[in-house]
C-alpha cells in the first residue's frame, strides 16, 4: 500500500494521531456521553465504535483498525463485576491479555493500544484516557510500519 494514501501527516507536517476506540454501550459509551454532558474538553483524535459489551470486541477489530490507518486503538468497557451482561468483560480481559502479549512478541508495540475500564460515571477518566492515548501515540508516530506491510512485489 502506498504510504501517500494513508499518511496521517497533515499538510503542515505535524502528525495528528488517528485513534479508533471500541467501547461497550453500557459503561464507557455512557461515560463518554457523560464527559460530553459535563463539557470536559479532550483531544479530537478518537473515533468511537459502539459495541454492546467488551465481550463482543474481537481482536480482529483491532488489527483491522490498524490496517485501515489507525495509529492507535482504545478498547474500553465496564469495570470488573459491573458488566451489564455479568461476565463479558471478564472474557474480554483474558482475550486481550493474551492478544497483547502475542502482538508484543510479534514486534507490534502493544502501547499502540490502550485497554481501560471506564464506568458510566467516569467521564473525567474517559477524557484522560483519550488525551493520554493521543499524546502517547503522538510520541510514537504513525503506525505505518504495520499498515505498509502490504507492499508491492518487484
Amino acid at each position: 500500500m502506498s504510504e501517500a494514501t494513508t499518511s496521517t501527516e497533515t499538510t503542515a507536517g505535524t502528525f495528528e494521531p488517528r485513534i479508533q476506540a471500541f467501547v461497550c454501550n453500557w459503561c464507557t459509551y455512557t461515560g463518554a456521553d457523560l464527559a460530553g454532558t459535563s463539557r470536559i474538553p479532550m483531544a479530537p483524535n478518537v473515533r468511537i465504535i459502539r459495541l454492546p459489551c467488551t465481550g463482543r470486541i474481537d481482536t480482529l477489530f483491532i488489527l483491522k483498525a490498524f490496517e485501515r490507518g489507525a495509529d492507535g486503538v482504545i478498547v474500553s468497557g465496564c469495570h470488573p463485576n459491573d458488566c451489564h451482561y455479568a461476565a463479558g468483560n471478564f472474557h474480554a480481559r483474558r482475550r486481550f491479555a493474551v492478544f497483547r502479549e502475542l502482538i508484543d512478541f510479534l514486534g507490534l508495540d502493544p502501547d499502540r493500544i490502550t485497554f481501560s475500564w471506564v464506568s458510566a460515571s467516569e467521564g473525567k477518566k474517559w477524557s484522560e484516557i483519550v488525551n493520554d492515548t493521543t499524546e502517547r501515540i503522538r510520541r510514537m508516530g504513525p503506525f505505518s510500519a504495520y499498515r505498509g506491510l502490504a507492499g508491492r512485489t518487484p
Partner: protein
Amino acid sequence: MSRIGVFVCHCGENIGRTVDAAEVARASGNLPGVAHATDYKYMCSDPGQALIKQAVAEKKLDGVVVAACSPHMHEKTFRRATAGAGVNPFLCEMANIREHCSWIHENRPAATAKAIDITRSIVEKLKRNAPLEPIRIPVERRALVIGGGIAGIQAALDIADGGREVVLVEKGPSIGGHMSQLSETFPTLDCSQCILTPRMVEVYQHPRIKLLAYSEVEAVEGYIGNFNVTIRRKARGLDETKCNGCGQCQASCPQKKIPSEFDAGLGKRTAIYVPFPQAVPNIPVIDSGHCARWKGIVKGLKKFACGKCIEACGRGAITFDLEDKIVTEKVGAVVVATGFQLYEIGRDHEADGLKGYGEYGYGRIPDVIDGLQFERLASASGPTAGKLQRPSDGKEPRTIVFLQCVGSRDPAKGIEYCSKICCMYVAKHTMLYRHKVHDGRAVVFYMDIRAGGKGYEEFVRRAIEEDGAEYVRGRVSRLERDGDVVRVQGFDTLSGEPVTIDADLVVLATAMRSQPGIEALAQKLSVSYDRHGFINEAHPKLRPVETNTAGIYVAGACQAPRDIPDSVAMASAAASKVLGLFSNAELEREPNVARVDEATCAGCFHCRRVCAYGAVERKEIRDKKGNLVKVVASVNRGVCQGCGTCQATCPGKSVELEGFTDPQIYAAINAFQG
C-alpha cells in the same frame, strides 16, 4: 442499501456552535449510497421528525442516519419516526456528534472533521443493517416458586393474588421454613408463628396455588415464558387424599425418641410425624430412616415388624407406597427462595473449605447451643413449652453467654461475609431471656453491633439499657465444661482484660450459609452462584431480584443473608417482576440477539461456554433421510441478552449478533479513513 438519508442536527447551538452541521450534511451527501443529506436546528422536534418522514417519502429513502446526540438520548425517538415513515426502525442509526464531539471540542474545523468521520462510519455501518422484527415469545402465565419459607410464601401469595397460578415446591414435609421455628421476631417481638401461620393457611387454601410439599425440583428445561419443570414428589408412605390430619398414627407410633428437626434436635418426634402442629399441609410423613416397617420393606422382608400406624388410621390412608412420583409442570417464570442453613459448626466442614470451631465444643458440651436451638427453647410451642431450661439438666440458666459472629466475618475460617441477622437476634434473645428470668445475667460477646434497619438500633439499645444485657466487645477463645457450668474464656478488647465467665448456657450466633445442594439446583436453573453458594443476582444494584437467566428470579436468604423484612420485600419484588412478565401473553424483546450460521458452525460450543445466560443450545442437523449430519449451536432468542461474547469467541465467526454483526462493524472500521 443505496438510498440513505442523513439528517444532521444543530441541537440549537449545542452542536452548531462547534460543528458546522451544514458542512457535515454536505460531506455526507457525497458518500456513496447517500441519496439525501440535510441539516436542521432541532431534529428531535416535531417539525424535525416530520422532515425525516417527508424526506423518506419524497426521496424514497431506505435508511436513516441522524447525526445528533447520543443514541442513549434519542435512538428510540428516531427509530419510531423512521418506523412511522414506513421504514423498518432498525434501519435507523444515530451518529453521536454532540456528546462525543461538539460538547468536548473547541476547534471548529477539527470538530467538524470529526463529526464528518463519525457520520461516515455510521452510514457505512447502516448499509449493512438488516431490517429486524421484535422477538415475540409466548408466555405461560404460571409461576414456579421453589422454597416454602417466608420468602416463597410471600412470593407465591403475591403472584396468586395478582391473578396468576403458582406451583409452590417445598422440600420438607411442611411449608413455613425457618420462620416457623422462631419464637419471637425482632424488632417488634411479635410471635413468629402468630404472624406466619395465617399466611401458611392462606397458601394452602388459595385457589391459584398448587402446593407440592415434600417435593424437589428434578430438572428445569426451557427458557423465559416456557419452562418445563420436572418435580419429584417424595413418597410420604401414605395417601394424602385420604389423610385428614387427625394425628392418630403419630400417637400410635412406638418410635418416639427421634430428634425433632423442627425443634433443632432439642425435642423428640415419632417415625410417622407431622413436623409441628401448625404444619401445612397437615399430613404426616413416614421417616424412612427410622420406621421399622419401611426399613423392612426396603430390605425385602416378608414379615413386617410393626404396623401400628396402619391399625390406628381410621381412614386406611397409610399405604406404605414407597414410590416417588414424578410430575411435570409448565411455567413461565421461576422464583428461587430456598433460604439458608445455619453453620453447623460442630460438624466437619472440610469439604466446604471451612475450618470449624472445635474450641467451642458445640455438639460435645450439651449446654452450648446455637441460636435456632435457643429459639426453640424460648418458643411456647417448643420442647419446653417456652420454659427456659438448659439441655443438660433442665435447670433454668442463671447466666447465659451469647457469642456473636461465630463463623461470620472470619476469613481465616472460610466465611468473610456478615450474616446480618445475628446482632439483632442476639439482642432479641437477651430480651426474651430477661423477660423470662428477670434476675438472670445475659452477656454478649460481640465484634461490632450492626443494627442498620428501621427500629433496629433502638431495639439493641433497649436490650442493653432496659433489659440489662451486658455487651462485651471481644472474642471468646474457648468454651470448657467445668462441673455443671460452661467456662467462657474471652478477652474484653475495650478494657484490654481477659474475661472468664461461668455460664449455665452458651448460645452461639452461628453464620448463615446457603442451603446444601443449592449448587445442583442452580445448575439445573442455569443461574450463577457465588463461592459461598448464594445465588447471584443479575445486577447488585439495579436488578437485585433477577438472575442472569431471564425469567428466573431470586428472593430471600438464598441470595445472601437476609432477615425477614428483607426476604419479604425481595419476595414481593420478585412477584411483581413475575406479574410484569405475565402482563402480556407474549413477551416482546429487542431483536438484538445472536444467530448461528448453521452452514458453517462446527459445533465446538465455545459460544455455549461463554454464554452467561445459557442461551446456546445444541441442535442436530439431519438430512432428508433423518441421518445425523452434524450438531450445531443454536441460540434461543428468548434467552439471549445480546452481549455478543459468543461472536467474539467463535473462531470461525459463525455467530452474528443482530445489530452488531461482523459486516456492520467491519464497515464501520473500514470507513475510518474517508
